[in-house]
């Protein structure tokens, strides 16, 4: 039997934080698979382990137990250089707090991952401008984050996440700090990226609007997967709620 290629695969991932004498089990054995091009939302109440799971998938933190595979590569086996390469090329990150580098302009933020990747200046400037145009901010290229609104900053962050054509975009509460309308615009933008570019989008979120666009929703509670719902089922359950 030919095994399907998964862009992300988690195998019984556990994460325990030790704070003084307290042990907090943030993740209690999570296993899941995500295929190329899927739009996945990770939902759950605060403290359920969403962000911890996000950090595991993004190779930003090491699991206490279990394995994380990105493009079928075991992340725990990578050295610092390979890990940096993976974060630079394979994954684009979007955060609730935007996390743009304050000292840099929009275009400099967008081109930074390409500089790390060793792209030539002409090429990265051209692509940076193209990406800013894609998110509708070409005219604001030379503005610093402090001169941009929240929604604009998040769009710069999305352009930055796309810089090295990653296979995965990881978004941690991307609409958490935005008003309803701007949040909806960001979700629309992410959806169109997933559809047109075939990028896998994994988003930890509280935002019910995300459900509409997701292929699957993973519900997390107390560090465990409560249920995974696919799109067709979602329609029904959301319909019932409404």
């Amino acid at each position: 039997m030919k095994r399907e290629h998964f862009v992300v695969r988690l195998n019984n991932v556990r994460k325990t934080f030790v704070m003084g004498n307290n042990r907090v089990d943030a993740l209690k054995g999570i296993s899941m698979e995500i295929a190329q091009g899927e739009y996945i939302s990770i939902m759950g109440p605060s403290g359920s382990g969403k962000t911890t799971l996000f950090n595991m998938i993004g190779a930003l933190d090491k699991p206490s137990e279990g394995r994380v595979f990105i493009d079928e590569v075991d992340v725990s086996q990578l050295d610092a250089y390979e890990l940096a390469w993976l974060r630079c090329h394979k994954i684009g990150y979007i955060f609730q707090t935007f996390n743009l580098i304050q000292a840099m302009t929009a275009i400099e933020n967008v081109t930074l991952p390409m500089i790390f990747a060793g792209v030539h200046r002409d090429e990265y400037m051209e692509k940076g401008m193209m990406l800013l145009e894609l998110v509708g901010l070409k005219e604001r290229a030379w503005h610093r984050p402090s001169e941009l609104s929240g929604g604009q900053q998040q769009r710069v962050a999305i352009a930055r996440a796309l810089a090295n054509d990653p296979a995965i975009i990881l978004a941690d509460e991307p609409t958490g700090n935005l008003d309803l309308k701007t949040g909806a615009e960001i979700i629309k933008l992410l959806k169109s990226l997933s559809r047109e570019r075939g990028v896998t989008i994994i988003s930890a979120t509280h935002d019910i609007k995300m459900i509409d666009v997701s292929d699957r929703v993973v519900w997390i509670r107390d560090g465990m997967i409560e249920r995974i719902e696919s799109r067709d089922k979602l329609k029904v359950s959301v319909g019932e709620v409404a």
Partner: protein
Amino acid sequence: MVDHGKLSRQIVLPWHQVLRIAWQSVKIRWTRVAITTLSLMLAITFFSYTLMTFDILNAIWPHASDILRHKIILAGYEPLGLSSGHRVFGASAKDIWLLMLAILVCLVGITNAQIMAVTERFREIGTMKCLGALDTFIVKIFLCESLYQGTAGSLAGAFLGIMLALISLAFKLGLKVFFFISVVSMLKNVGVSFIISVILSLLGVLYPCVMAARMEPAIALRHEI
């Protein structure tokens, strides 16, 4: 053309980019940087002032009349030896002790300021690592920033120290002191000031930035001030 994508370990940050990013960071945090530079400047001013004063006194002494020599001693400068050789004046044990103390206090001050400055930027460091930065990129950027501060502090400090030494000697001994200024001694003064200042600023930032660079990105990003 850069061939990217083949080598799965190649992550780069050329030095000209390090210099540029560090310069931008310094520019945007102007006040904080100015305060750190000021503490460096004060220590260097003290050092440079002491060095310059002794240099000029040593240059004047062989040519000084008895009246002028009397004036110098009255002004509080004690010749270490009464020989007619060149190095009549120099740092006494007390002077050296004071200088060491000034440098030590300055080092503690800079380390303190840099720990705060780096802590403030944990999230930025975490973000850079998410974008693919290696630990060494972070260290390089911070070292470069402190190099800028060290250079500015040493130049300003040396200039101020030399000026103060000249003005105070001119005030005490008369305008004659200006005839005994030696360019070589001034350059030596600036050079030594620069070396001390750069070493101080690098020592001050090394510990905080290495600690910060080695953090897991998830922990750096979680950090709230």
